[in-house]
């Protein structure tokens, strides 16, 4: 199995898993437009390599390793989509397919340069959230304004945008993406790094999210909240 195929599989399992909870063989086959038999075969390979937990007849679930890999590819895919749309002005219809081909060959360095060039965008042209990179940086400005190369150390724990927390779930702020003025506004209201915050509720249709921080409650525009990345705390309260 080529690395390109492997990444494509992981990506589609991530997509299906997000919606259905578990990726069934038939769903993966439909998504990748291949025969179910080849999917079964591929899942066995992925399972051996430790990317998925695979149970015949039930489906596949990503392992932590597999998820990290899949999110990395997804991030590249969406960054490329923004690049193709905003910089190269490629026709919207072709953007997805183009990005699909390019995402597998992108190096870490190019990905980082692309993110800098596009000023750390929050969403792809189709409106899906772009994951934060897993470099050990505390804000985007260290990347955008810093000279030379950025720390290539990676984080141990996965970062989640606060908007993906479940109501009642708590997280610790690890990274705020975006330009200085947004970061400053949020910081002044108490959203500093390593502060614990709790998602209270999300308004429907990508409306504002309500979060609790330092004993106050804030309603924050969804697009701004997308920039706040946390490491989730395990315990939840109702």
């Amino acid at each position, binding site marked *: 199995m080529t690395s390109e195929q492997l990444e494509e599989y992981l990506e589609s399992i991530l997509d299906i898993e997000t919606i259905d909870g578990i990726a069934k063989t038939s769903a993966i086959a439909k998504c990748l437009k291949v025969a179910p038999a080849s999917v079964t075969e591929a899942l066995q390979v992925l399972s051996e390599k430790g990317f998925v937990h695979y149970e015949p007849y039930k489906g596949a679930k990503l392992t932590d390793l597999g998820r990290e890999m899949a999110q990395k590819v997804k991030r590249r895919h969406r960054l490329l989509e923004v690049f193709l749309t905003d910089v190269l002005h490629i026709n919207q219809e072709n953007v997805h397919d183009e990005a699909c081909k390019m995402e597998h060959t992108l190096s870490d360095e190019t990905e980082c340069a692309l993110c800098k060039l596009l000023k750390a965008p929050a969403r792809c042209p189709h409106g899906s959230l772009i994951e934060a990179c897993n470099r050990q940086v*505390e804000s985007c400005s*260290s990347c955008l304004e*810093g000279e030379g190369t950025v720390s290539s150390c990676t984080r141990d724990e996965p970062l989640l945008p606060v908007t993906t927390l479940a109501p009642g779930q708590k997280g610790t702020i690890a990274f705020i993406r975006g330009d200085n003025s947004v970061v400053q506004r949020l910081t*002044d209201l108490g959203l*500093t790094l390593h502060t614990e915050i709790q998602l209270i509720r999300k308004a429907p249709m990508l409306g504002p999210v309500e979060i609790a921080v330092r004993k106050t*409650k804030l309603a924050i525009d969804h697009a701004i909240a997308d920039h706040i990345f946390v490491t989730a705390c395990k315990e939840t309260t*109702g």
Partner: protein
Amino acid sequence: MNGCNNCSGCQIPVSLPERKEEYVVALAGNANVGKSAMFNQLTGVDQDIGNWPGKTVERAEGLLQYRGQRIRVIDLPGIYSITALSTEEQVSREFIAHDHPDVVVNVLDASALERNLFFTLQLSELESPMILAVNQMDLATKKGIAIDLRKLSGLLGIPVIPTIAIQGKGIADLSDAILSAIVTRPKPHTMPYGKEVEDRIQKIMALFPAGVGGYPPRWTAIKLLESDSDTIWEAKKLAPDAVAAAGAFRQELERIHGEPAATVMSSERYHVAEQLVAEVMEIRPQNENELSLTERIDRLALHPLIGYILLIMVIGGLLVWTFIVGAWLSELLTAFLSGIAPVQPLVKGTVVDVIINGAWTGFVAALTLILPYVIPFYLFLALIEDSGFLTRFSLMLDQGMHKMGLHGKAIIPLVLGFGCTVPACLSCRIIESPKQKFLAAFLVTLVPCSARTIVILGVVALFVNVWWALALYLFAFILIVVLGRLAFRLLPGESVGMIMEMPDYHVPSVPIVLGQTWQRTKSLIWIVLPAYIIGSIAITAAFAAGFLEPINTILSPITVILLGLPVMTGVVFVFGIIRKEMTILALAALFGTTVFSTIMTPVQLIVFGLVAMLYAPCISTILALAKEFSWKQALAITALETALAIAFGAIAFRLLGLFM
């Protein structure tokens, strides 16, 4: 001295400052901590109170007379930081640094101490004499929070007074503390930051030992570190080399932390605030499964379906309640006043006759047309505001407002706009970006205010039917959405998203709701009554002197040919610019009847209502717009809306004529 908690501030022997006639005290603090309530308690002046952040848009002033001293109290707008990202922040910091108030009273919300102390730390860097009023102690107690104020006072080095401003508790202690602070001038201790930051602050302070632009040296150093543009600009005039050196320190700091220096500073301040809170605050563990009242109400009010139903019911209820109660009150008053003397606006006779008749007509019109509708509206509005529901509207409607390039906060001015456009325009200041602020103010001028509602009710609903009146209302809403979208595309500038504090709900307090209603009604009476009486006299006099004809003739191409209205309406619209309700008054005065169906056809009545609703905002609004933005922008809005009114009026006249 009681009320000082024996803080170190009072133990320092200080000589009496020269006796001044009047001392100045500034109230500063986060939004929605109860500053306005405290201001009212101290001064007895009725400052608007509402349970939403950003209530105090204009600096309010009042006088506290206490133990023979005259103390001018300034209520500064509520802000979360003084990094000068917004005009309010700029205004507050310049006032404290340049006007040198004798004492700054920092008002804090006891239930959100950490964030409030963050602001206290910034404020203390301005090095004014300062005292702390820790407000909403009752709410904190309810949440199981206990604060050791004596310890806090010791740590900060300034007096700390507990208060519950809404109930007037602690106000006497606070007044005593203010008086003694005028004498002792307690200055807060300098709170050292982390070593990396503090070292660099000290180094920059050595470069600017006297500070810059009237600000203290430590403040100057911190602002240079944060690369505050105003401070850099001022400092460059003094010593460009030193500014470059400060810039190098900033870069060092940014390299260490990988964050902009201003963000590093904010984190440092929060760190100090956290330490202070850890020292002085204790939280009694509460049963986490037990939902607070706010959380229980929010489950309904912010529910994806029930929430919107509630919202429509509340806004609909606000309008229906206003109309029903208003109509009932209006009838009562009319019956009562016509019993005293009949209204005879059109008289020709001696000067005295003209004046007396004109004045009486104006008085009756003001009392029967304005007050009955405004009082119930403001009463209901005060309930929505004081309970905390208004902020929930912002959250629920944020997505919808995005369509017009605005965000949820803009719903507050738009709802206020149903009452009076002027305060609604001023409240647009709660919106951060200049583009969105102007956009919101423009749309507010299109919201049918109580005056325009009265015209629509008095002309269209009464003499055509209610459905046409509602259709006009609907048209106004559609126009707001369409023009909002258009203006959003055409206006330059950026749109930023909403970040808004969600206050806890509380049971509206009867005195505050009544006080608020009375305060707003009173300020309206002060504008309306003289305007009506003078305007009415002017119309009667102009009629008696025969001045009306020329105005009507000049305007007749528009009124008669384009809009198909009687020639006399030219003058009516001119008077309407003073106040929109004056159109009804002028109509009645000029035609000598209040039964408008005898002078105009239904089509004419609808066109009249439409044009009156849309054309030029009233003079007070134009002035408010000019003050908030510029004359150019105010006149542009006026011209645009007048053109729109004439265009839509002409179209309506021709279309409606086909089938009515």
